[in-house]
């Protein structure tokens, strides 16, 4: 498409002519880079020596020494070669690089540990068994988390069924109707996405258990998750609908369609992949929520196929329970649960990425 619109026809190159390489005159030459390289080597060497001679020891000591020495070395090089401002620039550059590197560390550590500790407990059996006849201290190849997986599926699916219409209607109100209260609604939807998850659970408990005298059910858990999911769906859907050109709407109306027909047959189909992304983002947001489920689904070691009666479990609940038991096998089970949960979350995460990219092109 893009080759047809807006591009000038390219001059064909004469046969045999080599395409000239783009030049980058702003690129530092090796000669300019040399002091930096020398500085870096000095910093590494100096910090190794400092750690070797002084009582500073261990990785932490080495890191701290390395950071401070590299700052000193880099700033003095810049100061000597240029001026004080250049020195400040090198200090800030080094600090910012280190800050960014520190942010990577926990994520890499989390992913590494999930694989290291979660993988040993993985077996085909965990996807076909529940814990109804297995004690959590039983060997890892017995029992499984099928009940939690099914419970999670139920909770999230029901929450999605509730959140899609509400989230979509909210987004349509904000973009299509754009009534007088749109600003207020938008503001409070933003605020709603900051509601602590435990409060959502507490609210459902107050409504369902205290006021209506209900008991723990899967449905109660999914209502709590829906409260957390609606703002995500609504806000993303609003962004997506905003991107649909007004021309399309005007064209629909000019052809004599009612607003309802225009929205249903033009706007929503045009925004379809973005709206699906909005829903998946919502699912990814709530799939790992633990706190509201602790107050609403009750927990179960066996399968419960009925979402409207009886306790149920969910993956986060399973992790929570096994973590709380604290024995060695229970904790191994918790890590395996985390592994499975992260795989599920990552699947949704990747889906949003793929759909989001498709929309961009």
């Amino acid at each position, binding site marked *: 498409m893009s080759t047809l619109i807006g591009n000038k026809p390219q001059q064909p190159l004469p046969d045999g002519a080599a395409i000239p390489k783009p030049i980058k005159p702003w690129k530092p030459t090796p000669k300019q880079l040399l002091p930096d390289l020398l500085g870096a080597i000095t910093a590494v060497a100096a910090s190794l020596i400092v750690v070797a001679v002084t009582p500073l020891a261990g990785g932490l000591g080495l890191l701290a020494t390395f950071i401070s020495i590299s700052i000193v070395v880099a700033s003095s090089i810049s100061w000597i070669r240029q001026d004080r401002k250049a020195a400040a620039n090198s200090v*800030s550059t080094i*600090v910012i690089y280190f*800050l960014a590197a520190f942010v990577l560390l926990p994520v890499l550590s989390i992913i590494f540990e999930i694989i290291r500790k979660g993988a040993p407990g993985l077996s085909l059996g965990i996807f076909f068994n529940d814990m109804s006849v297995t004690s959590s201290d039983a060997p890892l190849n017995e029992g499984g988390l099928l009940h939690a997986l099914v419970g999670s599926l139920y909770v999230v699916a029901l929450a999605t069924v509730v959140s899609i219409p509400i989230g979509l209607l909210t987004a349509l109100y904000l973009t299509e109707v754009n009534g007088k209260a749109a600003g207020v609604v938008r503001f409070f939807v933003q*605020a709603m996405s900051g509601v602590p998850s435990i409060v959502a659970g507490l609210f459902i408990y107050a409504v369902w258990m205290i006021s209506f005298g209900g008991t723990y059910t899967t449905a109660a858990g999914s209502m709590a998750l829906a409260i957390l999911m609606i703002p995500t769906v609504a806000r993303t859907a609003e962004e997506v609908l905003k991107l649909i050109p007004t021309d399309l709407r005007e064209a629909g109306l000019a052809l004599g369609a009612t607003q309802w027909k225009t929205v249903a047959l033009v706007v929503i189909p045009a925004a379809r992949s973005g709206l699906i992304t909005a829903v998946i983002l919502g699912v990814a947001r709530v799939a790992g929520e633990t706190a509201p489920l602790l107050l609403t689904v009750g927990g179960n070691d066996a399968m419960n196929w009925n979402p409207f009666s009886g306790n149920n479990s969910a993956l*986060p609940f399973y992790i929570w329970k096994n973590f709380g038991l604290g024995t060695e096998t229970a904790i191994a089970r918790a890590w395996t649960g985390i592994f499975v949960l992260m795989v599920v979350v990552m699947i949704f*995460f990747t889906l949003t990425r793929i759909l989001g990219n498709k929309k961009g092109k």
Partner: protein
Amino acid sequence: MSITENPASTHVPKPREITTEPRFSDRVFRGVVSSGGFISLIVLGLISLFLLYNGFGVFRSEGLSFVTSFDWVPESIENGTEASYGIGAMLYGTLVISFIGLFFGFPLAFGTALFLSYYAPEWIKKPMVLVVDIMAAIPSIVFGVWGYFILMPHAEEWARLINKYLGFIPIFSMPGDFFTRSPFIAGLVLAIMIIPIITSISREVFAQTPLDRIQAAYALGATRWSMIRAVVIPYGKGGVIGGAMLGLGRALGETVAVYTVLNLVYDIRPEILLSAGGSVASLIVNKFGEANAPELKALMAAGFVLFVVTLLVNLIANMIINRTVRKG
């Protein structure tokens, strides 16, 4: 024209009134969509109503001491104790761990946002953005379990070091040798959890910095850091502060991750390295399991306080961000 050509004519056509009469189907459509749009508002209202209604008795009997006193004693007939509920220590603890989280998380997030916007080469930028997004998608229970088993042993060592060299400052002092499960460690976990929010809002803000001012700064010979100090930071200050407040809102309401790494103690301790802290959200999870009916009401009241505090923080944060970023 016609008037000047025919001066005799006094007839000036009135402008036609332009109205649209929505058809019936559109009236239904707009009605349904509008009422759907208000559901979020209604839900927010219902949350505060139900929590307030259930917690009202506790608010009335405890009065202001509900948020100032430290003891959480449910009524017990065997021991003959009278019920007394106060979340003062928990509220204080929540603030302490959230600010520790902000103290560590904000510089890291701010630096990362600057790095991604102005320093990173393209080939680092893309995977790094992906990593920060993955960070936002990690469920809090995962942060909690990881924090307990992996971070805690390291953080304990760091806490020992801080205590060794800065122990003369009261907040870093240590009456015994209890370095595990401290507010310091809970704050570190929260810091990691709020980094993605602050980073993405800050990046959004930085992306709005007018390019001509950036280029003007460079043209005047500014180094990258001088440009950031002279253009980016003044322009994006408000938005970045709003992002930090959103992070604070998340930290205040975080439950599971904090509960797994923090030792709840119903007392206000100034030492942040000591294994004693508080968190309103964790209190709810902690007491919920074995709470009797009146204690549940007290938990509802605690939930109401938490809801109001986080809602206020979020509203202010969004107000600041909307003013600086999402103009128009």
